[in-house]
């Protein structure tokens, strides 16, 4: 999931390393001897294997073996191998590569599982403890005045909504992990999608501060409407959480012929650069505001939803607040322009 940023970065690293090693071995090959050169050539294999991606390992190892064979194994610049020992070392390259890839995969899976459980227990236990605490207050024998009672009940309602949102997020995230096959595209109207997302916050005390501006030329968008609603809900949730009392939130939908751009603006103090970069990483949360009730998984799902639609999401500090910008390419043009009643 971390490969959305630039999917082939690790290939580049391994191949540059391979190039450097080839140059080194060409220059100092005579001094080093074939065994040492072979060991050097294992480095790119190790580097790529640590990614835990079998396909990448196979490709890079194959390239490495070919380059090693051409440049260093006599007869030079040919694929023929005189000594069977060399053929054996080629197989070893793959063996080492696959073993490390397998181990790296296991370690990654464990790390993800751990982070997942950490986040889940935080995101789940915070609303749960608020919910149980408030319920136990209401269950106590001594009476509470009606105003306090209502406040407690609103808290309980809010916690319930949060748990509900978390459950929806987890379900959608499981769906997204399966890849493109589960995308259920249909014609979506962004005005409608925003409306449905706003519905989820209809009891939120600050929901009226969300202002919606939609370019009248916005056409229907061919995408997974349910996932796009989730995207909107998560970003609204985020904006509502990080916007102080009396500050504004504005959602703008703009379009040209090729892209739809959704801009979420909320008035707030700027976010640190390092935080901006990591905002969309799974389970990342701006630490010093842990009391806000984590969105460890919400924003990463936003990124995944944008990605399955072939789009991008960015966060940046803009004048007076924070901007989240989602750009979705229009992949199928609607022949029914909205705004032009027929």
């Amino acid at each position: 999931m971390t490969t959305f940023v630039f999917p082939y970065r690790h290939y580049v690293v391994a191949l540059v390393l391979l190039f450097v090693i080839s140059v080194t071995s060409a220059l100092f090959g005579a001094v080093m001897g074939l065994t040492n050169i072979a060991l050097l050539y294992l480095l790119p294999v190790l580097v790529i294997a640590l990614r835990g991606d079998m396909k990448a390992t196979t490709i890079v190892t194959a390239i490495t073996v070919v380059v090693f064979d051409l440049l260093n194994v006599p007869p030079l610049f040919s694929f023929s191998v005189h000594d069977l020992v060399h053929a054996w070392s080629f197989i070893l390259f793959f063996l080492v590569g696959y073993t490390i890839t397998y181990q790296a995969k296991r370690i990654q899976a464990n790390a993800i599982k751990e982070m997942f459980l950490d986040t889940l227990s935080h995101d789940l236990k915070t609303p749960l403890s608020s919910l149980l605490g408030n319920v136990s207050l209401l269950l106590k024998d001594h009476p509470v005045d009606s105003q306090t009672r209502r406040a407690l009940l609103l808290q309980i309602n809010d916690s319930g909504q949060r748990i509900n949102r978390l459950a929806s997020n987890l379900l959608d995230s499981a769906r997204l992990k399966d890849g493109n096959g589960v995308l259920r595209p249909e014609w979506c109207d962004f005005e409608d999608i925003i409306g449905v997302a706003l519905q989820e916050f209809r009891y939120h005390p600050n929901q009226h501060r969300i202002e919606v501006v939609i370019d009248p030329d916005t056409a229907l968008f061919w995408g997974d409407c349910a996932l796009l609603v989730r995207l909107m809900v998560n970003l609204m949730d985020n904006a509502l959480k990080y916007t102080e009392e009396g500050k504004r939130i504005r959602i703008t939908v703009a379009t040209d012929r090729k892209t739809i751009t959704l801009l979420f603006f909320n008035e707030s103090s700027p976010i640190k650069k390092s935080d901006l970069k990591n905002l969309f990483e799974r389970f990342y949360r701006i630490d010093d505001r842990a009391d806000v009730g984590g969105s460890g998984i919400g924003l990463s799902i936003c990124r995944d939803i944008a990605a399955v639609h072939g789009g991008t999401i960015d966060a940046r500090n803009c004048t007076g607040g924070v901007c989240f910008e989602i750009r979705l390419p229009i992949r199928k043009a609607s022949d029914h322009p909205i705004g032009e009643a027929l």
Partner: protein
Amino acid sequence: MKVQELVLIIEDDEAIARMLSLSLRQQGYKTLMATDMQSAHRAFRANRPDLILLDLGLPDGDGKTMIRTIRTQAAVPIIVISARHEEKEVIASLDAGADDYVFKPFSLDELAARMRSAQRRFQGLSPSVNIISCGDIILDIAERSARKSGEYLKLTPTEYNLLKYFMLHLNQVLPYARILKEVWGVGYQNEMQYLRTYINSLRKKIETDAARPGYIRTEMGVGYRFICDTTTPE
């Protein structure tokens, strides 16, 4: 409302069934609970309930067959209770003859409103056929006109037909395919583009804030519902 109407609750989760029963009794209904299909059939035959709440995820079989069986035997409102991500099942249940649905987790107020409007439809208390009003909208079928706050709305023929179809089915969930078939005709069931486009333009004309629609509510993945129930909590 008839005094002490009987609601049959078919739900295998005891906590939810008990909560539903408690809340319905507070509202003046009598309740009967069944935890699986078999006992539900028995309870239905023995007691002839006035309304049925049916959880789709029952241990012993498909709720849709139950809906079909009931439909052949009695005219009683059926409201389906379902987990999220089961939109297809919900549409199939509506096609099988269910009257409405709520997704878990649902609010009791919302369920109560759904029950009331389903009952009203069954008791034939649907709005008078020539002039239907809802909020600040008045539809005059004889005159083929619609007014909002007294002012005539400029609607295209399709927009008018769509609004009319909605207002003849107030508060009722209307699956996409059904709307397309009724308003556009057979063969148009899959033309979601038409529907979305016209909903958008109709909202622009009848809603006060199209991004926060008060009349035409989207039921994600299922269809639309024209809200006209002062008792629906908002």
